[in-house]
């Protein structure tokens, strides 16, 4: 995956600059307003400490989306490099595995950098806060594998489909998954929708790692949901890669 090398520097700037901007704007700007009303609803944490784990998870999800959607689809449809790769002893399943491994590695690197920025801002929580990194990678990939499967399935309308996923999937999930406010603030009718969001499970886990507050069985439940989603999506993605590249 040397292909990624030319984008390393811009990726690095984005990985550090992005979080710094979000933290400054949302944390220090909006946070000052929120904290004025007291932070009881946030479990006693300052606003910026409350949103920090969610920002990390949301950033991982964004990167997972772009790598699993246009970047992967391009290798199948536009550049067609995956057809060249699967003409060798490499099977479509191995190619799918390689995508999951590469994107997970890329997500881990970005999450580590994001975590370091959070440390600098003093909002990375205690030592257990470092667990936010694997949690963010898992929750992003639990969605990512499904987008990989989608990329191997769609053909001509890719841009439309990916934009739909972004607008009606990723963006609302980021806004309503207890990223910027607890879901208890939502009307009870739409609260179950947040339970369906993989990002909510990730946010809850990441926030627990940084600030604590979840019971053991809830941690186990969130983890189980994310793992199940990831494993099922992985199986589907491998299957879709074979149908697309060897039919």
């Amino acid at each position: 995956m040397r292909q990624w090398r030319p984008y390393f520097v811009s990726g690095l700037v984005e990985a550090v600059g992005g979080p710094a901007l979000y933290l400054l704007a949302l944390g220090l700007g909006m946070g000052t307003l929120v904290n004025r009303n007291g932070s009881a609803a946030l479990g006693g944490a300052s606003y910026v400490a409350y949103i920090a784990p969610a920002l990390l998870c949301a950033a991982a999800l964004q990167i997972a989306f772009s790598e699993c959607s246009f970047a992967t689809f391009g290798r199948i449809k536009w550049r067609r490099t995956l057809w060249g790769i699967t003409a060798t002893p490499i099977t479509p399943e191995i190619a799918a595995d390689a995508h999951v491994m590469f994107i997970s590695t890329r997500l881990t690197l970005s999450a580590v950098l994001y975590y370091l920025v959070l440390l600098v801002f003093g909002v990375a929580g205690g030592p257990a806060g470092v667990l936010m990194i694997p949690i963010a990678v898992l929750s992003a990939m639990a969605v990512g594998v499904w987008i990989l499967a989608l990329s191997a399935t769609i053909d001509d309308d890719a841009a439309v489909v990916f934009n739909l996923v972004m607008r009606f999937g990723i963006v609302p999930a980021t806004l309503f998954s207890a990223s910027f406010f607890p879901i208890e603030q939502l009307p009870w009718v739409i609260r179950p929708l947040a339970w369906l969001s993989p990002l909510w499970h990730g946010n809850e886990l990441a926030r627990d790692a940084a600030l604590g507050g979840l019971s053991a069985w809830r941690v186990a439940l969130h983890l189980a949901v994310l793992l199940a989603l990831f494993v099922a999506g992985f199986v589907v993605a491998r299957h879709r890669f074979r149908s697309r590249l060897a039919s």
Partner: protein
Amino acid sequence: MTAEGVETIIAARGLTKSFRVKGGETVHAVRGVDVTVCRGEAFGFLGPNGAGKSTTMRMVACTSPRTGGELTILGRDPDTDGVAIRDRLGVVPQQDNLDEDLTVRENLYIYARYFGYPRAYCRAKAAELVEFAQLTDKAEARVSQLSGGMQRRLTIARALVNDPDVLLLDEPTTGLDPQARHVLWDRLFRLKQSGVTLVLTTHYMDEAEQLCDRLVVMDGGLIAAEGSPAELIAQYSTREVVELRFTPGEQAAAEDAAAALAARVEVLPDRLLLYTDDGDETLAAVTAAGIAPLSALVRRSTLEDVFLRLTGRSLVD
């Protein structure tokens, strides 16, 4: 077709491939193909667009499972031994699928790594193939900066990273200028001399005559004819062709008279083709019969005549 003691590389019997397309309709792309390719041979699939050539090639390349029939490549079944077979194949696809973000050398190196060779071996192989592709000056250039002909040479070089037993080429020179085509033919001829079995698809008759020892003409998913270029010409055409061109409007009057002068006469909108074994004799007969064409040309029959006779002159796609 298989001579005694010659190893069979590809054997297909009743090979078929059907696709389910959107809307539930089934397309029968390949309807029952029998071919045998021996080691060291250059074998061609000719045919118009949509004849089933590329689909057949993908089945041979073990990247598309067959719907029916038997297929053996290098003595193995692609359904069960696809990985082992692909390990011994070189594949040149119809559309280049090089990694445009990488350099020429990196493309070769990475591709060799997909076959599981050690790094040092891949570096050496990449250096060797950069030479073979005549891209020494461009070795460190990104693929996106190469011309179409250079990219095609690189794709062919890339297919050689594993010293394949068989090289599969799907329309290797489509879209290239004459210079680039001749350079490629030269490279392919050298490979053939070194003992690599070549299997190619093309719809250029001159390419087939240049490169192929034996070929099949495919049409509508079936094999319409099989043989060496010379055999096919002997069987499906005559030795020579007389082409008569007329001033517009005067051709119709000559058609009946001309029909009696040759074994077969083909009437085209702007000219008459008289298929004959002796062109000069036929041309003399034409003149004697009082037919006065605008211009007359005597030429050898080519594979193109065979091709057009077998697959028709109308557009197929």
